[in-house]
Structures are given as structure tokens and as C-alpha cells.
């Protein structure tokens, strides 16, 4: 890329900021995909990929995706926990499929309405 203008500067910032923001560990929403051995056996990898795809396609900048170990409820894997800033408690979603993930992103993350049918419980452990 050749000489940039001030507008170009802003564009580069937007484009790359996604990555760096992620690295700061600061975001409005945090999605934690549980990937213990049981989770992975149940297909948590696929769930993770669909979460990432959803976020990228919607260009969401304030969502962090992490993974952690086994949550304990192996029969209900794959599971993910969604924490939204200013919401009282995180929500645990169980028995996930890529379609369910899509719905959760649309409803809970974008509109702030948790999808009750897919949730196990509201308010388990806090990570922060």
C-alpha cells in the first residue's frame, strides 16, 4: 500500500483493531466454549468454528471467544458459557449444534435476550 491519507489511517485501524482488541482481553461479551475431553468428543471443535464464523461474518468487535476445560456436566456437552458485561450472571448453553449457536448469537449477543430453551442455567461461576 502506498501513501495513506487520514481516512486510510482510520480504515487500517478498524481492520486490524479486531485482532488487537481481542488480545487485550477486553470486550463486552465473552463466550467460553468448554473444551474438555468430553466436550471435544462431543464436537466442541465444530461449535467453536461456528461461533468464530458467526462473529466474523457479522463483524462483531466486542466479543471475545475463549475456551476452557471441562465444566463438569459431560452429558450435556458441547457447552458454552456466555457472559455479557452489565448482565447479572453468565448463561450456560448446553447440547449445542451450529444452528443453535446461530440463534444464540442473534438473540443473546446482538439483542441481549438470552435463549431460554437452550440454556441450562443462569448464573454459575464468574470468571471476572
Amino acid at each position: 500500500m502506498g501513501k495513506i491519507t487520514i481516512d486510510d489511517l482510520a480504515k487500517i485501524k478498524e481492520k486490524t483493531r479486531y485482532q488487537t482488541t481481542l488480545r487485550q482481553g477486553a470486550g463486552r461479551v465473552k463466550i467460553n466454549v468448554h473444551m474438555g475431553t468430553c466436550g471435544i468428543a462431543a464436537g466442541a471443535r465444530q461449535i467453536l468454528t461456528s461461533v468464530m464464523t458467526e462473529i466474523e461474518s457479522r463483524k462483531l468487535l466486542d466479543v471475545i471467544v475463549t475456551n476452557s476445560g471441562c465444566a463438569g456436566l459431560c452429558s450435556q456437552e458441547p457447552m458454552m458459557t456466555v457472559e455479557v458485561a452489565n448482565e447479572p450472571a453468565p448463561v450456560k448453553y448446553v447440547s449445542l449444534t451450529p444452528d443453535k449457536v446461530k440463534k444464540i448469537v442473534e438473540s443473546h449477543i446482538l439483542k441481549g435476550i438470552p435463549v431460554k430453551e437452550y440454556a441450562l442455567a443462569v448464573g454459575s461461576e464468574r470468571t471476572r
Partner: protein
Amino acid sequence: MAYRTYLMVCAGTGCVANQSMKIKDRLEAEIKKRGLDSEVAVVTTGCNGFCAVGPLMVVQPDGIFYQLLKETDIPYLVEEHFIKGRPVKELLYTPPKEKTPIPRMSDIPFFADQTLIVLRNRGLIDPERIDEAIARGAYEALAKVLTTMTPEQVIQEIKASGLRGRGGGGFPTGIKWETCKNAPGDKRYVLCNADEGDPGAFMDRSTIESDPHAVIEGMCIGAYAIGSSEGYVYIRNEYPIALERLKIAIKQAREYGLLGKNIFDKGFDFDIKIVRGAGAFVCGESTALMASIEGKPGEPRAKYVHTVERGLWDKPSCLNNVETWANVSQIILRGAKWFSSIGTGDVSSDAWGGSKGTKVFSLSGKVNNTGLIEVPMGITLRKIIFDIGGGIKDGKKFKAVQTGGPSGGFIPESLIDLPVDYEELTKVGSMMGSGGMVVTDENNCMVDMAKYFLAFTQEESCGKCIPCREGTKRMLDILEKITNGEGTEEDLVLLEELSNMVVESSLCALGGSAPNPVLTTLKYFREEYEAHVKEKKCPAHSCRKLITYSIDPAICVDKGHGCDVCRKNCPDGAITGETKQVHAIDVMKCGRCGICYDVCKFDAIFIE
């Protein structure tokens, strides 16, 4: 490409020297092997500052901090953390004398108490990718300045912020820029002092290694403010990684047109040349630095006519330290009011009335957490040493902290509640300097420490003027005498007189500050000098010619049962004794190396 996890591998010089690049390669290989290369990215960053525990890595966005990594740890780490989701406990940071690790970087006390302005991008960006710096806001300040501010407004903002030179002089930066701008001349130069000669100081090196664009942007803004179109970075050749990253950064900035002609189409031209210095501490002095750029020997000259009026090639030149430049863009973006809200004092009516913003220190010596820290001005030395620094190693007792490098002085425990501030440090006889901080404990002999620092400055003296060339050598000779047990009381009087004279009459600040370690130790630790001179003893048990090692026969027999470990390890063959029998040290043969003291498990050996 959206990754879910970023592995920020520290690639500052310290960690690189400890093979962090090999660790990075292994990580990449392992991640690829396990099929994670579309989810996990490996990024090399600049120095994170916690050098005592390198090679280190931070896993984002979790913020998990891994330390003391080895290549062999990597496969297990990848398997456990990135596949199974379980951080590896053994590789996390555990404070000394505690059992539970602290996984999160932001919880570790070393990091928790720091305020990052200059080092805001450390560990978060790859310094060799300009886009990442831009993503974190680089060159936004330059855009703001070029579109909405006049040079005078820029200078006013810097003046209001209270920014003072971070190279050691503490001269108000805004006033310096203003004087340079108003000095008569057809050409002006903007210079960056990246020589950093203080032994043990690496603030500037880390800044350039982590975030070179912060420095470049600062220089651009400075050049706009004073009306310059040519800048020089004088960097020491002993910093190859920093030099390389700076070159790459300049190249990338030029490609984007952020350096060169007509930046941002605002009719502002500016470009930077790199000049390397080598092997000369004195070239950190402004007039010697400029002489070196001009191709002359690096020797200082009288500064009765300041370099802002006649500097490089006799033109007005504005020389600032790397750290000073790195602060500029943040002041422009976040405002002078924000900057002056951090720190001590009040600069609204007197530019020297306070110390504003943060300061980067390189903490070293006998503390647990050695490394690079950035703290707000006004923080107490106690907090730095005991909270951030984690206290004295091996549970020993604190003795003194040396601030300001070889030009600074020693501050004893009675004074470490003073806030870190230019004037406060100078009042007690030391100085802020460029930010070196060396902590000593009960086993450091203050006479020896003074000798150590004086030997450095004496070696680095350019030799031009009599007081520094001859005076510091005579001072060093006297200190040698004292540590060899040949000192007299007249020597102490002479030493102090000579020190004061060298301070007063030297041509440049090297000579003018070289006696500081001697003067402060004489002031606060005179009893140690007197012990060396009167009793021919070294209270800290450090000066070899003045100590004796001996074995307590009772402990050796009762507890150690004549284990013979000391005799086996003595390089001078000075210990006699048979196994299961008492051992003794022959004082005549003993070289005072201290090995026996270290190996004796029963503490049977004592030093006098």
C-alpha cells in the same frame, strides 16, 4: 482471519537471549501439528518488562501469564491448555515463598501496580507490523496535530502537560521546544537520544523494541511544532534488535507516507535518519552526541550556548530522550489535563513545579522481580521495591537503592518513603536519571558499590578536561586503597574534597555527576567507610582483602560431622581436615571466594 487465541511471545532482547525465538518456532510447529493453526496465532512482541522470569508468554484474551518457558515445555503446554483447556500450573507465576500460582497477568503484583503510557503497547502488538500499531492508535495524534493544531498550540499543550525530559535532565520539554522554535536559524533538527549508556538500563531499548512507532510519531509531532524537516535517531550499536525494529518501522512508515514529503497531504515534510554510536557512554551527552553525528570524536563542549540555539552543525537542535518522545502522542490524544493529573506537584505556574506523567524504570539488583516497570510519578520507592519488586531476594535486608545510573546516588532505607519525583530525588543527593534503579541488600558493601560505579564513569571519561580525567582517576585510586585495607582518614577527607571539586569544575555532566555515588555513600554510610579505614574491616563482608572466613568447629563437628564438602570445593586448597573430623580454613591461602560459605549446609562457616 479470526483467531480465538493469541499467544503473545515476548521477543525483547532479554527473552531472545534466552531462546524465546526457539520457543516461538516450537509453538508454531506444535500448533500446526495439532491442527490448531487456524484458531491459535503466535505473535512476537516487544519486552513485557518482567525480565526476571523470561522467556515468557501471555495467552490472550484470557490474560494467562506463562513464565520461565523452555522448549521442552511446549508440547505439553499446547496439549493441556489449547486442546484440553487447562492452563499448566507449573508454568504459571508463583510469588516467592508462596504456593498458589497467579494465572492472570493483571493480577500479578509486578504488573498490577504499573500504569502504562509509554509502554502501552508492550506485549500486545508485533512491532514489525505497522498495521497493528495503527490499530492501537498510532499516528492518530499526528493526524490530529496536522489537521487541527498549529505548531504554537502543540507547544502549549506539551507545556501544559508538564512533560519533562526523561533522559535525566528533567528539563521541561515544552520550554525546550519553544526555545528551539524561536532560535534564529534557517534549519532546525529534531534528535532522539537512544544511546542509553547507563549500565543496567534498558528502558529505551525496550521502548523501541516494543513500539518503535510511538517514538517516530513523537518525533514527527515535535518536528511539526518546532519547524523541522530532518530528524536523527542516535542509537547505540549494542542494541541490534532495537536497531532492526526501528529500521523496519521507519521503512514501513515511509511506505505509508507517514515519513517523507507532504505527510497526510498537509504540506509537512519530515524524515528520519539513523546514526549509530558504539562504545561511548559519553556520547549520551548532548553535545558529544551531536559531535558524533557530525563525524567528529564524541567529546562534549561547553554548553554556555545551548544546543537548542546552536546544536547539530551549529543549527538549532531539539534533543529528547526516547521515552520523552514516546509520551508525546498520548498527550496530544488524551490531553495535557489528563497527563498532568498523574504525578506530583503543580506545573501551571512553574514548569519545574512538579513531575508529571509516568516514568519507566529498570529495576535490578537484589529484588525478586527484576525487570522493566512504568509507574506514575509520585509513587514511593518503598512501593516500587517491596510491592512491585517483590521485596529483597532470599529474605535479606534492604540496604540502599541507587537511582539514576552511575550518575545517581544511593538512598538509604530511612528515605525510601519519598515520592519518586525529580526534585525530591535531587534533594537527597541522587537524581532521576534515565531510570535505572539498583537495589542493594545487607551484603553489598557501599564502598565497593561506589567504587564500582566510579570505575565505570572513570573508564568512560572522554579525557578532555582535567577535573574529570585526573580527578576521577585519583578518586578511584583512593577507593582502591580503601577497599584493599590501605586507606587512611586523610584519604576520606581527600576523597570528599576531590569529589566536590570534580562536581563543580568538570566540563560536562559526566564529570559533574560521576562523584554522586561516592558523595551519597559518604553521606549516608560513612560508618562503612570508617570501618574500612579505621578497623580495616568490611561490615558487609564483601571486600575480599578485609574479610576472613572461618569455620566454627562446634557446628562443624556436631551438626556437619565433618562432611568435608567445603574442602572438596575450595579452589585454593585452603581447608584442612579429614572426613568426620573438624575442618579449618588457612587464612593465608584463602582467596575469599565464598564458595565454602555457599556449599556448607550447616552454616558452619562465618565471615568477619
